[in-house]
């Protein structure tokens, strides 16, 4: 009621706009979202709800971070529970507990209490309400079990049952070590590995708050999975890219169990017509049952201008109308009990037991919520990959190393809060100072120069350069200066810029100890060494083939350029198909060469530059050489190639810079894995900035990358004086 009164008072002064960014704009539930907004406006006169566009997938996460970094007003946002701890630690969310306490209509028992637990801070305060949640369960192919004469296991089944059935179902008729039918496809991301560790009595943190994955119970769980995957070969791993994009083993009926996985698979699996399938709780280990909950929830970011109204809208979003609409989508379980228990969700008569998702909730747990947990999770996941995906190290070895790395990261965080803040004037001033300094420098040089007489050509040169110089000074110099400051600081993009802490040269000292950074350097250099020369050679070859006028070369030029404009997702899918799903995604020796080969597909832009360059070859020279009796090869070597050297230099420099910045392809295909075998430098600094929210260290990495590329480019330019021939130029 207070909220309404306040809203009315505000309305008198100015119309209130509530800005809402939720992913459900793109859901099948979009119409309902609009309806909820209109209902809310009717109940709160003078308030307008603006549903902003974000974008699907990773896009919406990035956009939220930019919105907070720029301190752009936003009243309601949508957050993944894995990001909750980092956002909370960085002060990016508004504590909603006071609003819940003041709300007479709030009844926590309307929601699953285990689900609300995931949105509580360390003080027990509630920071949001659920959209949908996903306790991880096991999907089971019932027809397959029936045909083998195996009974559906009971809900309290064990690891032993799981292993026994998986072994009985596995078929390798041609004995090539790659079964045609597996017992299980096991999902591999860390959140999905956690239940196995808990079921066996392992834990992530010990009483002292240190990572304890090297305790025997946790090691045994990883060893169990490693044995099923690589020794007994009765389980297959389920790589992320394949899982997202492909039919997969489960849908094609080639596996009995699939999991641990959330309700989100149901959307795809609903289309299965060939066999009957169902849900089972995860099998129990020696320490009993356990599962983990994945979840997205509505929250109020710190940039909200109307927290009370925002709270009211969060309540409306998590209310019956929206929750019932989401219940039918098949992407997650509604957090509102009445919607989850409704027929829209349970779909009685479909032959499956949706109730399993409620039954497992008492055993549900969450991953730790300490600061820097997302980075720890990535580090641990990468090391586990070496055991589970690549089978390169033993479970014990991986666990020991993962624990050591994680504890180093934990130890680092403690002192960041005690660092001095960066003066806000310094940060804000960067944008003003940089252009002003550049302008002053320019005026001074010109005045000094004018005293000595500025000739017409030099004046013209400055006029020619003006658009570039003005743009650079206004739009680029400030951000670059800020990036330079941040390299010596630590700042989370979801904080206010004034919360940045001064770290000094420590960030650079950290580089020496950062094992992931070393891996990414190795991978990036190896990629560049292969890709830069190969791309130029292939592009030159293609250009020579299509540069001559003739029938069909125009079409050929178009076709050869095609892959350049296609999405990396398409290229990745075709690439997998060509390699027949072989071991390349897992074999550390083949990952970087694979990305190099794929990059040759997109040599089209370099080809186009060569084609343009070929027009500058003087036909008269060719004719003269021909009359002198020079053959094709000699004419290419002595006439064409020298004339092409200016664009060759261009392609080399641009190729070099591009190779060190490779990002899109590994981002959609491997996310840096397995292990760190495709953790290219830019991928790593993206992770630091956007996943671990460590913009300071990301800037440090960016400057390291800059120095490397700058030095290599300078070397290339210096050497070019010897091999690049500019027409008619003396040098």
């Amino acid at each position: 009621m207070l909220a309404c009164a306040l809203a009315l008072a505000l309305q008198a002064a100015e119309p209130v706009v509530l800005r809402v960014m939720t992913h459900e704009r793109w859901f099948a539930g979009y119409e309902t979202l609009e309806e909820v907004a209109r209902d809310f406006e009717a109940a709160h006169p003078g308030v307008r709800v603006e549903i902003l566009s974000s974008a699907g997938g990773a896009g919406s996460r990035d956009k939220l971070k930019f919105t907070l970094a720029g301190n752009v007003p936003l009243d309601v946002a949508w957050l993944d529970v894995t990001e909750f701890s980092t956002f909370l630690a960085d002060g990016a969310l508004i504590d909603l507990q006071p609003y819940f306490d003041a709300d007479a209509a709030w009844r926590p028992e309307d929601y699953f209490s285990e689900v609300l637990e995931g949105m509580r801070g360390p003080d027990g305060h509630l920071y949001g309400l659920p959209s949908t949640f996903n306790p991880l369960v096991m999907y089971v192919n019932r027809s397959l079990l029936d045909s083998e004469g195996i009974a559906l296991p009971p809900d309290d089944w064990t690891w032993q049952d799981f292993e026994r059935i998986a072994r009985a179902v596995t078929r390798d008729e041609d004995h090539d070590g790659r079964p045609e039918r597996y017992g299980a496809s096991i999902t591999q991301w860390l959140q999905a590995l956690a239940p196995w560790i808990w079921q066996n009595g392992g834990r992530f943190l010990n009483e002292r708050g240190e990572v304890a994955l090297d305790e025997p119970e946790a090691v045994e769980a990883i060893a169990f999975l490693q044995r099923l995957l690589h020794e007994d070969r009765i389980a297959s791993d389920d790589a992320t890219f394949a899982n997202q994009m492909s039919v997969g083993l489960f849908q094609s009926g080639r596996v009995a169990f699939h999991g641990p996985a959330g309700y989100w698979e149901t959307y795809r699996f609903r289309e299965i017509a060939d066999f009957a399938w169902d849900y089972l709780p995860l099998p129990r280990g020696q320490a009993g049952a356990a599962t983990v909950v994945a979840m997205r929830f509505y929250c109020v970011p710190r940039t909200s201008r109307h927290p009370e109204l925002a709270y009211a809208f969060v309540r409306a979003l998590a209310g019956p109308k929206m929750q019932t609409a989401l219940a039918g989508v098949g992407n997650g379980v509604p957090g509102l009990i009445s919607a989850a228990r409704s027929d829209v969700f349970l779909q009685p008569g479909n032959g499956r037991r949706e109730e399993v998702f409620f039954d497992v909730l008492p055993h549900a747990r969450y991953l730790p919520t300490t600061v820097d947990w997302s980075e720890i999770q990535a580090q641990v996941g990468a090391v586990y990959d070496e055991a589970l995906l690549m089978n390169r190290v033993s479970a014990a070895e991986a666990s020991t190393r993962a624990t050591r790395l994680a504890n180093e990261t934990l130890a680092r965080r403690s002192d960041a809060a005690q660092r001095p803040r960066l003066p806000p004037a310094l940060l804000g001033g960067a944008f003003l100072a940089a252009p002003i300094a550049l302008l002053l420098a320019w005026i001074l040089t010109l005045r000094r120069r004018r005293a000595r007489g500025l000739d017409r050509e030099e004046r013209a040169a400055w006029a020619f350069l003006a658009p570039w110089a003005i743009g650079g000074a206004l739009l680029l110099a400030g951000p670059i200066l800020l990036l330079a400051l941040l390299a010596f600081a630590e700042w989370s993009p979801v904080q206010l810029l004034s919360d940045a802490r001064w770290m000094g040269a420590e960030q650079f000292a950290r580089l020496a100890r950062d094992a992931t950074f070393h891996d990414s350097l190795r991978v990036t250099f190896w990629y560049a060494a292969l890709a830069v020369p190969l791309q130029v050679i292939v592009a030159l070859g293609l250009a020579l083939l299509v540069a001559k006028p003739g029938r069909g070369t125009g079409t050929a030029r178009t076709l050869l350029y095609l892959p350049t404009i296609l999405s990396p997702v398409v290229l990745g899918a075709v690439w997998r198909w060509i390699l027949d799903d072989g071991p390349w995604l897992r074999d550390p020796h083949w990952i970087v060469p694979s990305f190099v080969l794929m990059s040759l597909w997109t040599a089209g832009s370099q080809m186009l530059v060569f084609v343009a360059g070929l027009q500058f070859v003087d036909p008269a020279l060719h004719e003269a050489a021909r009359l002198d009796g020079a053959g094709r090869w000699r004419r290419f070597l002595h006439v064409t190639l020298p004339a092409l050297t200016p664009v060759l230099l261009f392609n080399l420099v641009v190729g070099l810079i591009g190779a060190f910045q490779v990002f899109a392809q590994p981002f959609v295909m491997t996310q840096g894995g397995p292990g760190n075998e495709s953790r290219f430098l830019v991928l790593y600094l993206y992770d630091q900035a956007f996943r671990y929210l460590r913009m300071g260290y990301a800037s440090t990495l960016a400057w390291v990358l800059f120095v490397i590329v700058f030095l290599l480019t300078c070397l290339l330019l210096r050497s070019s004086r010897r091999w690049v021939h500019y027409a008619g130029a003396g040098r």
Partner: protein
Amino acid sequence: MKAAPLLQRLLLIALAAAFTLPLLWMLAVSLQGEGAGLTGGLTSFPRGLHPENYAEAVRQMDGFGRMLVNTVLITAACIAGQLLCCSLAGYAFACLRFRGRDGLFLVVLATMMLPPQVLAIPQFILWRQLGLVDTWAPLILPSVLGGAPFFIFLFRQSFLAIGPEVREAARLDGCGPWRTYFHVMLPLVKPVLGTVAVFTFLATWNDFWTPLIYVTSPDQQTLTLGLAAFNQAYRVAVELLMAGSSLVLAPCLLAYFLFQRFFLREMRTRGAKG
């Protein structure tokens, strides 16, 4: 000697096939039924064609027409900006003498070397302070003021490749720097103008990240943002995504095809003169 053109032709056909595969794949996926996934691809034809995916994609993109207009406007502005700004700067670096030229050119190259992924955050803060977030200014202005270092470099190399004799002749004819640039030199680098136009067209048309970050209002959306409708949490509507992507891609292909014909004619006339 006779075998060479035939061999060359066969090689070209084989290469073109290898490079066309991803596009065919994409078209195949765009026509398949729901739930077949990306690996369905070329093997899913027996299960029936679904051309209605295209209509459904347009429907779900919610405002396809407006997105198309927005994208065309933004792209046209960027092409004009890049051509002007970069050819001017490239010409200055290649053909005009001034103190500090080489050092300044190194600065141009250096601005390419910072990874855009992290530079984007300070840039966003700057646009926010200028009050221009959720307008098209951050999408267009950097092309008009500043330009891409990539293209400045390309223009510089191309002007250098022409050689100083032409400029010398123009100077003797009494042309100043501006007339030399506009009437003499610019026509000579038409193929490069075309290349830069194509590159800018494709880069702007297909850009996802910049509009994602800066554009928020539903009526300012671009086509690539519309495509995000098919990329939902935990799930990708692959067949609709590919149908939508094919629609978005079609103008690119057309533009590219038309432009490369223009290069071809250009080359023929040059060849005839030679």
